[in-house]
């Protein structure tokens, strides 16, 4: 199959690369750009481990063709910390023990980051809904919900840059 040119901005870095148009966004991120922070748990859009932000919205990158992201901005877990400074949400995840094996964590962080961009002070129900598509087998979710809630309630304002 003829390769197509993909123009994509990933974590604020503009990239151009020739890809097979059949390739999924998650494959390009992990295999071509070596951004292996984004995981794959099912390849059917059911688990959410591959969640990234596409033009600010959370998407499951195993269900998006890379060419659908042509010209778009993509944010992955690797872009959350800036210059060695963790994002508020990342700090809150540490404080609340909101991860265990860590395999769903990148997707979970991206879903929650997208939520907080859209709704500054989400309710508990809104947080639950935002991560409903992200499966976690370790934590039972409550620590994740507490972590997101703490950021939403401004607990990390003082501490942030």
């Amino acid at each position: 199959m003829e390769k197509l040119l993909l123009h994509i901005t990933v974590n604020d870095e503009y990239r151009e690369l020739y890809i097979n148009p059949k390739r999924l966004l998650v494959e390009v991120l992990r295999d071509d750009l070596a951004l292996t922070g984004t995981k794959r748990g099912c390849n059917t859009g059911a688990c959410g481990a591959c969640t990234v932000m596409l033009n600010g919205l959370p998407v499951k990158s195993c269900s998006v063709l890379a060419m659908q992201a042509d010209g778009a901005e993509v944010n992955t877990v690797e872009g959350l910390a800036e210059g060695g400074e963790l994002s508020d949400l990342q700090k809150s995840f540490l404080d609340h023990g909101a991860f265990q094996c860590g395999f769903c964590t990148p997707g979970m962080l991206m879903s929650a980051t997208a939520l907080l961009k859209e709704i500054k002070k989400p309710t508990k129900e809104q947080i639950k809904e935002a991560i409903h598509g992200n499966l976690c087998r370790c934590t039972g979710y409550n620590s994740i919900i507490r972590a997101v809630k703490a950021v939403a309630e401004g607990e990390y304002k003082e501490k942030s840059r």
Partner: protein
Amino acid sequence: MKKFNVINTPVHNIDGVAKITGRAEYAFDVKLPHMLYGKILRSMYPHAKILKIDSRKALALTGVKGVVTGQDTLGVKQGIWRRYKELCDEEILARSKVRYIGEPIAAVAAVDEDTAEEALDLIEVEYEPLPAVFEPLEAIKEGAPQLHERAERNINVTRHIEWGDVDEAFRKAEHIREDWFRCSPQHHVCMETHNAVASYTPEGRLTVWTSTQSHYYIQVLLSWMLGLRESDVRVISRYTGGGFGSKFEIDSAQFCSSLLSMKLFKPVKITLTREEEFQATKRRTPMFYYLRSGVKKDGTFVAKEARVFTEGGAYTSMGATALYLTGFFQTFPYTWPNYRYDGYRVYTNTAPTSAMRGFGAPQATFTAETQIDLIADDLGLDPIEIRRKNAMYPGYEVPGQATIQSCGLSQCLDKIEEWIKSRGKLPPNRGIGIAAYGFMSGGIFNWFDTPYAFSSAVIQVNYDGKVDLYVGSQDMGQGSNTTMVMICAEEMGVRPEDIRLHMGDTDNCPVDLGAWGSRETLMQGNAVKMAAADAKRQIIEFAAAKLSPNIVYDLDIKDRWIHLIARPERGLSYFDVVKEAIRGKDGQPIIARGHYTPHRKGMISPAYSFGVQAVEAEVDPETGKITLKNCVTAHDCGQVINPLGVEGQLEGAIAMAAGYGFTEDMPMDEGKILNPNLVDYKILRSAEMPETKVMEVETYEPEGPFGAKEAGEGLTNPTAGALSNAVFHAAGVSVKNLPITPEKVLDALRKKEKEGKKEKK
């Protein structure tokens, strides 16, 4: 002075930053130069002879580099049962016969996954299908199709436990109850599927990056199956994306990638798809459970008899241990004076069933606790009271099996009783059910026949005071890395940031049997504590020489300050003393070692955790739908090491065990799983998670490091039973067949209604 500086404070997970920034490299992420990708061809038949495999067409496909079949193996029948060879029955790559749908037959390596997948279709396999049997109660009958030559009536293993005079005691019982239960299968659903990258080089060395709970077991099993020297196999597993019991046996990704790499001298990566994971990896053992219990009218337990038939699947796997443990934990956490257990593990033409978080105990706890509430109801007794009357206590001896040292069960019952009272009168269709449990802190079993200590640790203290700690334990998310660092820091008198942990690599780490049976905190923890104490002693020797105190004084280190215990202000900086100590030792860093193997601690485990859980649930009488409202746990895990970690373990266990109780199942049709995906196999999602609360009951376990014991796996035991009791108290029906789905609740409600009408007539 504070009792502890590090222990019992919430410490950030030491792998946390790597995990939340995406930097943590799982085996799933490993990519090597010239790496090939493998795929596994699996049996379409539940039971068949393999007559011929022709892979010529697959090899002719552009991009295919190699194919292996059972004929390329040494034909080793392996298992974790190296002391009991008759239980080693699984080849991984079948040579002449397949016994379940999904059993590996061949593996292909190609330049990419798509090509490897395409090549699978080109491998021609000639089968001779054989009659198959799927249910244990069918498979055990005379004349049923037989899976293994040696196993008549498909009986794989039997287990018997008995104490007291059961028959005589039943004669004296004032009330006897019999019940049958069915415990469903459950899949581990690790977010990281099984995978491995194997790289064999001409020096005769095999390196395998993989997702495992025990790099040591995988190292030894691979060396056995491949004919390599043990130390020539290196297994690396820095991060493991979930285990829950599914990753301490050898798997098809590890074996097939190794075999292909040894043939091709190139790295080969195999990652199981989610569908393969459901179809062909192991799962919690389904059990048919018969319970007969005799009690006095006041609720005193007199005698119990249990008979269990398990669906074993095609191979022994870890099932023999699950079969023993379910019989052992059936009496927990009570003082049954007379008990008889007979367990039968039966081969069936399904994927092997095995260990999963709880290891036979969730089945035991669900059945036992459900029956106890039925007995209490029969006799008009309070569920808390009947449990309190028969509760284990410190010093209790399980006849011939175990001695309970620390035990906070009665305090747990008090706390749960208080919470239930605080709920007051519940709205209609709501009920609270409770379940009590106990669990082990690591197994004493050595079926693996390791010649090494069960756990070991090595410490090197460097010139700058940084402590290199080498452990063999595996962190699969449960947080043992952080636990070991905390134990080391506390014992040595330094801070967690002074420790650099080395784990997950057989080349650089001492042996530990791995993360299963809740063994790490107690066993690896004891080894770490012993090594840390040795390092501290060596440092203190130099400090003593310098301080030259009266010989009757003791020295200690707390928070990097080496001091006289009686006069804490008189001391020296840890950093200064370490520097001088290394110069004083002719430039050698301080090296210390520790190890732990349980001796004279009974048959099962050196220590037991306890707990009581209350589940509040609402049952919709129209639809049978169950909604979890609250889940409250009173928990005795001895001394808490990291409160942040314990809370996470508890909440996670509730999610997993609630799934076991009411949403997760693996229906099969002729040995084929019908829901091999994450849409139809329903693990709990965020919205279904109830409010959770934990109340720690602190006890001191003399056998554990700083008094600690098991804190994560046992918490999977009570939820299904507490949930079933909540449904019983909310709707008046008992569902003895897991999972408790709306359909089953509705059926039970209708049946009850009919019976009610009959009675009125």
